[in-house]
């Protein structure tokens, strides 16, 4: 859901830049306080993997595709603040080097995917812990739900921005984006669970690295 330039009006672009710049600044401060040495390469690898996975569009319905957003995954692996920075890195490289997503619109894309996408995934994953616990099946249910909701909420916020910009009326764009991303979210949930399954099998310690920092 990388918004190109031209979809959003100036006011919406500027407002979303202000909010996302503030959010990323806070994330930088928080990460600076809590990131340990072992998490440094994990941030690099997570960003690299999410970039690569975002190139692998999968067909979801007639003539439409989706791809991983990765916000929930980044939050689960690194905690929400570092997760915000990971997705921001991916989006910045995509916009600056590959012209994927506009430059003016980058603020909105960061807000939608690196902030809302990451934090909604985190809140679902962490919030369901009390209810479902930490057994294998619970991790996967929580991961799927986190992935699914993160995509849907990011898409709905993008729709709000498009409506505010006059690109499309809310009554049209919200259900359209919500509907297609409810499908894409299933892919997100599945990929998130697949990665968590793999990591739990080979390096389960990676899944709990940030815990001391974020649950202190």
């Amino acid at each position, binding site marked *: 859901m990388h918004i190109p330039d031209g979809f959003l009006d100036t006011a919406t672009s500027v407002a979303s830049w202000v909010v996302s710049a503030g959010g990323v600044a806070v994330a930088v401060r928080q990460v600076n306080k809590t990131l340990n040495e072992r998490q440094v390469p994990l941030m690099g690898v997570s*960003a690299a993997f999410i970039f690569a996975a975002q190139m692998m569009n999968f067909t979801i319905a007639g003539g439409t595709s989706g791809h991983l957003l990765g916000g929930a995954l980044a939050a689960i692996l690194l905690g929400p603040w570092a997760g915000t920075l990971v997705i921001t890195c991916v989006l910045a490289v995509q916009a600056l080097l590959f012209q994927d997503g506009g430059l003016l619109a980058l603020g909105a894309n960061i807000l939608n995917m690196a902030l809302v996408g990451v934090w909604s995934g985190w809140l679902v994953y962490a919030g369901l812990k009390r209810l479902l616990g930490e057994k294998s099946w619970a991790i996967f249910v929580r991961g799927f739900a986190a992935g699914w909701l993160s995509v849907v909420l990011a898409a709905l916020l993008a729709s709000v921005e498009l409506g505010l910009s006059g690109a499309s009326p809310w009554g049209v764009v919200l259900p359209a984006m919500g509907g297609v991303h409810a499908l894409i979210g299933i892919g997100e949930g599945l990929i998130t669970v697949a990665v968590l399954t793999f990591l739990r099998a080979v390096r389960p310690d990676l899944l709990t690295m940030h815990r001391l920092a974020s649950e202190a």
Partner: protein
Amino acid sequence: MKNRWWLIGLLIALVVTLFSPLASPHPDGLERVAEDKGFLERAQDAPYELIPDYVFPGIANENVATIVAGLVGTLLTFGVGYGLAWALRRRVRAAG
């Protein structure tokens, strides 16, 4: 080496990009909605072009060009993410 687990992770990411020519060519959700609901033409071109559409310029075979674009992007993103994390890491040494 166990210490270089992250290198394996990076290799996995690079291997994923080798499959990028197989990715679905259909427009993604936003682009499709923009097409269907009539606001796609509002999109403006970027003010410059480096590796547009994830096709590395100057390579005749489009599949190879896509893979090269993916490899470059994956490595660069790794560097940016790692570099940022390294710059921000806590430097407090645990006692004892």
